[in-house]
């Protein structure tokens, strides 16, 4: 059945080798120095450069991938899981309303710059953020703070969200109390975000001397966030050097770390722009691991002896529908027809890494609030046809956007998935006009401004709370969906206002059922993103939130 083995690939390339060696570009010298000799450096290939070394200024995964190794937040997720556990705080509790949060801090924790970690330090951070001025208040810099804690002490921009943060008080050396005005579904999860990780107060004093400026046409990050030296966290690694020219961030083991010390002395994160570039770098032994392995490569790498663990699913890919863009979508039957027309099983079978699942609702089953008794829409072309007929939309034609030049944890091969869906819909008699767009910013713009009748998008959870998924979409009217349905909106809102976790979970279940009843769009799949490591690497526990802790890595 499989005639083209990777052997024939080798044969081909080998044949080429002969040809190319003739052109005389072979070299007598072998691999570079760092390959041979004792392995005390773990090299990880990242798809992009970090934006800043201060996580609180960033919103992108590449930044967090780096800072996560050097900064810790009050709370963390259990290694390899999505359960919230103590980070810099050993224990935490809140009042029933969920407005007063008390953290019992870990003792004997040191910052990279030698400062001692204590309640004062925690509050120094929160107050620092809360008192941000000027450009720091731009959502380009403080997105996450604004999502979790709202606005600032003095909002300079009237359209900035109202502050929800009230105060942080150091009850005693090791007890910090953080108060918020209204209960929020983002708490306590938010306390685990890298964007709210704790920095050394000494470093913060330095930060405050510098300004982020918005002169010119762009926001200039403060110098301290662009070079190693000032920033200081408590993590197992400390940032040693950011060589922008060579696109690499070097970290070294922090020997006064409070927990298990990092097993490998040096950690280097290098940027490799292309997907096949990262794979080849691993195969060539130039790096020891990389993230977002293309499903097609998993088997290849594994059979070559590489370790390719896949995470538990903690993300969701959905087929978005913008009713304002194509009125036909306002008919429930049409939306249901589409739901029945798409063979989601097949996507899982052919496109996703082993462990991928068909999504029955707008959150993965690993999230609290997932409900088994939502309305389901099994693959059934005939039913779809008949629904369309009954809606009088038998010759429905609809535009569908899909992103190019991108792979996301929840969306390994966008174009292929798109083409499968397109084929399915056309089988059911729906004419699909494809509209490919560059992921960033074209596609995101188009989708968020509601100019894509059908589109594929998804989300990877920041922390284990249902609102982090459905809240972002269905709490209020949104151009991306272009519908108003108070049943849905209230159901979703209800959860966010509920302080008590267990009660909240039930409300989310109800919300999910309401959503799937209304069916604003079609949840497609949850995909387990794969991450690859070298043959001689003992990988870390992989995290559903893609929050691997490289301190766990060691070499055989």
């Amino acid at each position, binding site marked *: 059945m499989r005639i083209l083995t990777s052997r024939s690939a080798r044969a081909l390339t080998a044949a080429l080798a002969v040809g190319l060696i003739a052109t005389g570009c072979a070299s007598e010298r072998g691999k570079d120095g760092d390959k041979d000799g004792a392995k005390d450096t773990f090299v990880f290939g990242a798809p992009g450069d970090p*934006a800043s070394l201060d996580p609180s200024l960033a*919103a992108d995964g590449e930044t967090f991938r780096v800072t996560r190794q050097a900064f810790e937040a009050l709370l963390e997720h259990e290694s390899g899981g999505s359960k919230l556990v103590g980070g810099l705080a050993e224990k935490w509790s809140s009042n029933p309303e969920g407005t007063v949060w008390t953290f019992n801090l870990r003792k004997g924790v040191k910052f990279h710059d030698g400062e001692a970690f204590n309640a004062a330090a925690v509050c120094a951070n929160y107050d620092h953020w809360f008192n941000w001025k000027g450009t720091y208040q731009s*959502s380009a810099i403080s997105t996450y703070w604004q999502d979790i804690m709202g606005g600032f002490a003095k909002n300079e921009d009237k359209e900035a969200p109202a502050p929800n943060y009230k105060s942080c008080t150091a009850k005693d050396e090791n007890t910090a109390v953080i108060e918020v005005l209204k209960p929020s579904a983002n708490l306590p999860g938010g306390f685990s975000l890298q964007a709210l990780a704790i920095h050394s107060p000494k470093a913060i004093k330095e930060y405050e001397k510098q300004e982020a400026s918005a002169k010119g046409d762009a*926001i200039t990050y403060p110098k301290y966030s662009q070079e190693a030296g000032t920033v200081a966290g408590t993590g197992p690694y400390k940032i040693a050097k950011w060589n922008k020219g060579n696109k690499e961030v070097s970290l070294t083991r922090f020997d006064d770390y409070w927990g298990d010390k990092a097993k490998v002395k040096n950690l280097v994160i290098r*940027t490799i722009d292309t997907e096949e570039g990262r794979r080849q770098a691993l195969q060539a032994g130039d790096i020891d691991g990389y993230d977002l392995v293309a499903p097609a490569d998993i088997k290849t790498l594994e059979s070559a002896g590489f370790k390719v663990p896949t995470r538990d699913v903690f993300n969701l890919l959905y087929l978005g529908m913008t009713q304002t863009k194509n009125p036909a979508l306002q008919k429930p039957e049409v939306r249901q027809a589409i739901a029945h027309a798409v063979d989601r099983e097949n996507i899982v079978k052919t496109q996703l890494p082993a462990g991928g699942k068909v999504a029955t609702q707008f959150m993965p089953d690993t999230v609290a609030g997932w409900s088994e008794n939502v309305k389901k829409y099994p693959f059934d072309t005939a039913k779809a046809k008949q629904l369309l007929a009954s809606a009088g939309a038998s010759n429905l034609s609809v535009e569908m956007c899909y992103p190019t030049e991108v792979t996301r944890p929840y969306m390994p091969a966008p174009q292929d998935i798109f083409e499968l869906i397109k084929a399915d819909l056309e089988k059911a008699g729906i004419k699909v006009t494809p509209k490919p767009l560059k992921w960033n910013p074209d596609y995101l713009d188009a989708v968020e401004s509601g100019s894509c009748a059908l589109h594929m998008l998804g989300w990877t959870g920041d922390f284990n709370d249902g609102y982090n998924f459905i809240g972002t979409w269905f709490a209020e009217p949104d151009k991306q969906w272009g519908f108003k349905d108070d049943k849905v909106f209230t159901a979703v809102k209800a959860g966010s206002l509920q302080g008590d976790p267990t009660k909240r979970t039930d409300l989310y279940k109800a919300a999910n059922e309401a959503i799937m009843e209304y069916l604003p769009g079609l949840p497609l799949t949850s995909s387990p993103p794969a991450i690859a490591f070298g043959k001689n690497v003992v990988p870390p526990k992989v995290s559903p939130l893609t929050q691997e802790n490289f301190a766990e890595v060691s070499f055989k």
Partner: protein
Amino acid sequence: MLRLVVRRLLQLIPTLLGLSVLLFLWLNRLPGGPASAILGERATEADVARINRTLGLDQPVYVQYGRFLKRLFNLDLGTSVQTGQPVWDEFVLRFPATVELSIAAMIIATVVGIPLGYLAARKRGGWIDVASVSGSLVGICIPVFFLALLLKGVFAVELGIFPSFGRQSTGLDATDVTGFAVLDGLLTGEFDASWDAIMHLVLPAVALASIPLAVIVRMTRASVLEVLGEDYVRTAESKGLERRVVRGRHILRNAMLPVVTAVGLLTGSLLSGAVLTESVFSFGGIGSFIRTAIEARDYPVLVGFILFIAMVYVLINLLVDLLYSVIDPRVRVH
């Protein structure tokens, strides 16, 4: 001489201004803006609007252009939206890589191309001729990125002779003086660093060289053929001069004239290929940077780059002219 240089640079100014206007209008037609480029999935309209306001992107184009010019006169190219760093710094940071790559490619192209072209011409119709001509034709016809991928697949992944990406090996802590990795190594005496940098250069350079090499081979061949028919070559032969002398002094020195110009122009056009090779080998140069700049609507970088590149281009042409006047007495600049 100096006046020539000055005049050329002055001539450049109006063109650049015109260009920058066009560019500005052009870029302003690009859908989307830096805001969502920064925010990614979680961008909401409100956020986008606010960011555009902070960046002054909500103002009319001419206002923005005005601001741009004002900055330009203070020799400030602005700040990159992608990296939040001054555009100038970004160029200084990334340009050496590309220059290094281009030079390496050009060296390969000329060192291999000129002798090959000469031989082809001398042995016209012989196997060298056939081989090098057809070879150069194929060289032109292989898409650069495909060649780059193959080279990488073979020499980096399969044979592991060369590193598969980047400019330097991991953790090799080379001191940075000029930004030119090879040069720095030599300056600081870290020869291993230079060697390492060279190893990283080989594959991308070879890929990048494919087209210039082909062109040079064919140009050299053509112009040598032409020169061979010239009377002064016959004169030289009639004097019974040694082969060596006839070849060097009488044939090549004349045949090189057109080739020199070609080399100049090619160097200018190398950047195009650099975009591809740099992204295949994720070679931290200006090429890949600009590519992402376009995707991220990084206006300041793009405008700055255009001006920059125009400058470079003119300088290269200038250099060619000067060189030309050195080797061809008939066009001496007075």
